[in-house]
């Protein structure tokens, strides 16, 4: 994953993120309602440049969203012996966007056992990403 605070924008490993000189993307920052229009581009020397942001968070979002978009995994998991047949779950950190469907598949192959407490780890080290899938609520046994 991109460490946006540590990354050296003059020396980005472009291959790692499947980017090349001249690539660019225009998108709207979704960090706050200001909705800044961002333009991110790989310059001729391979330097990644963000324009249009008004704050540090917008700048970081621009780099992240350009190099490797990440999203929270939000879905449900089958649960046995619970008061409901499914339990809402989420990842404890964002997952690379292109791995979301793989992640959903892992959750779909897993069955939790009631009782469960909010925050319980239901999938450990999801897709070797070092990310957990955790329960979003308590679920008592039937």
């Amino acid at each position, binding site marked *: 994953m991109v460490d946006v605070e540590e990354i050296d924008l003059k020396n980005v490993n472009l291959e790692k993120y499947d980017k090349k000189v001249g690539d660019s993307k225009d*998108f*709207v920052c*979704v960090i706050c*309602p*200001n*909705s800044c229009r961002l333009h991110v581009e790989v310059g001729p020397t391979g330097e990644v440049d963000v324009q249009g942001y008004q704050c540090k968070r917008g700048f970081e979002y621009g780099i992240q969203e350009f190099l490797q*978009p990440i*999203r*929270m995994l*939000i*879905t*449900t998991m*089958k649960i046995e012996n619970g*008061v*409901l*047949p*499914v339990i*809402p779950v*989420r990842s404890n950190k964002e997952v690379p*966007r292109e791995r*979301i*469907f793989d992640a*959903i598949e892992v959750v779909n192959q897993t069955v939790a056992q009631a009782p469960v407490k*909010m925050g319980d780890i239901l999938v450990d080290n999801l897709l070797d990403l070092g990310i957990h899938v955790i329960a*979003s*609520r*308590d679920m008592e046994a039937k």
Partner: protein
Amino acid sequence: MSSCQIEKRETDVAIIGGGPAGLAAAMAAYKAGVKVTIIERDFELGGILQQCIHNGFGLRYYKEELTGPEYAQRFINDIKNTNIEVLLDSMVIDLTPDKMITALNKNKGVLKIRAKAVILAMGCRERTRGAINVPGTRPAGVFSAGMAQRLINMEGLLPGKRIVILGSGDIGLIMARRLTLEGMKVLCVAEILPYCSGLVRNKVQCLDDYNIPLYLGHTITSIKGIRRVEGVTISQVDANWKPIEGTQKEFECDTVLFSVGLIPENEVSEKANIKLDKTNGPTVNEYLETNVPGIFASGNVLQVHDLVDWVTLEAENAGKNAAEYIKNIARCGKLITPIKTIPGENVGYVVPQRIEYLDDEKVVKFSFRPRSPARNVIVEFISNGEVFYKRKKKHVIPSEMLNLKVKLKTDQLGKNITINIRNREQAKEDT
């Protein structure tokens, strides 16, 4: 159970509804030192939050991003550590102006609960296909978005395979993503307005991420199918929302979701002779008290909110006010002839609808919504023909409620307070 057994109970504050508003009101009333009873019709507390499994809740109230169930769980855990009485599986069917509640419970039968104060926290319900008169046949496969959300997220059922969604509010957008992740094909989202009514974040992360087309200025003009939905027609509309001939697009689908707005639940309020406003919820004073003394309202039953955090803050206020009403704690200011609040230019409604207590001055929290999106505006509070408060806003949209704390001074106020949202340039020219 004998057929005429009626269980009688007494409490200080009875709260109708155990969703986010009811939970926050209960905690606030409890902390103020009165006996509290929550009456909830579902089998558990949490209300609609339990099916809103996505994240984005709590940024304001908890300063961190939670899912709906996590937000609810925190309140449920707090309540477990109190002696707040919780009646589950209990449906309130009647409320009288003297605060006698009748509820039905499968095991206990009829419950009569005598309360000293009541907080209405029933939330809202979804507008349906019938509410917007969509032509066509009436097959199976037509759902409101929230119904589909409950089926998928709580009951583990899928509503269909190929879906068309009407309405680009946040629920419609979030359901588009949810259905896609569960393996269904969302063919498009149609929106009658010329702009997306949900948050940009949701448009990006729910539609753009999965290449789901959004047709703005379009509506469903026909639903086809006899037993099950077989397809829909969507058409572009003109400025008066009239379909334009020749713009029809056909979609083969087995399911249609309607995400076309929410309406407060009013049946119980009306039984207690509570007056309703253009919010479709009760009219209240600055203590969130309805026209019936001791009956308060908060959350989506009062006004449909966009953020649960605002619901919590409003309900905490109602809970505290209800407790103070019981304890006979004097209100800030003396009772006056009510000053009415009036939604003016580009304002849809204002809560509270009246100010009832005032001496020299006090601060009152107002909530209101713009009718249409606007940039570089000025919010003006006007009384006696004079602007007594103004605030600049970079942009306003109908899906984001505005909350302002405003100091009211007796010598500045006449019979009414009008709130306008005006273009800044226009406002300058007028002065």
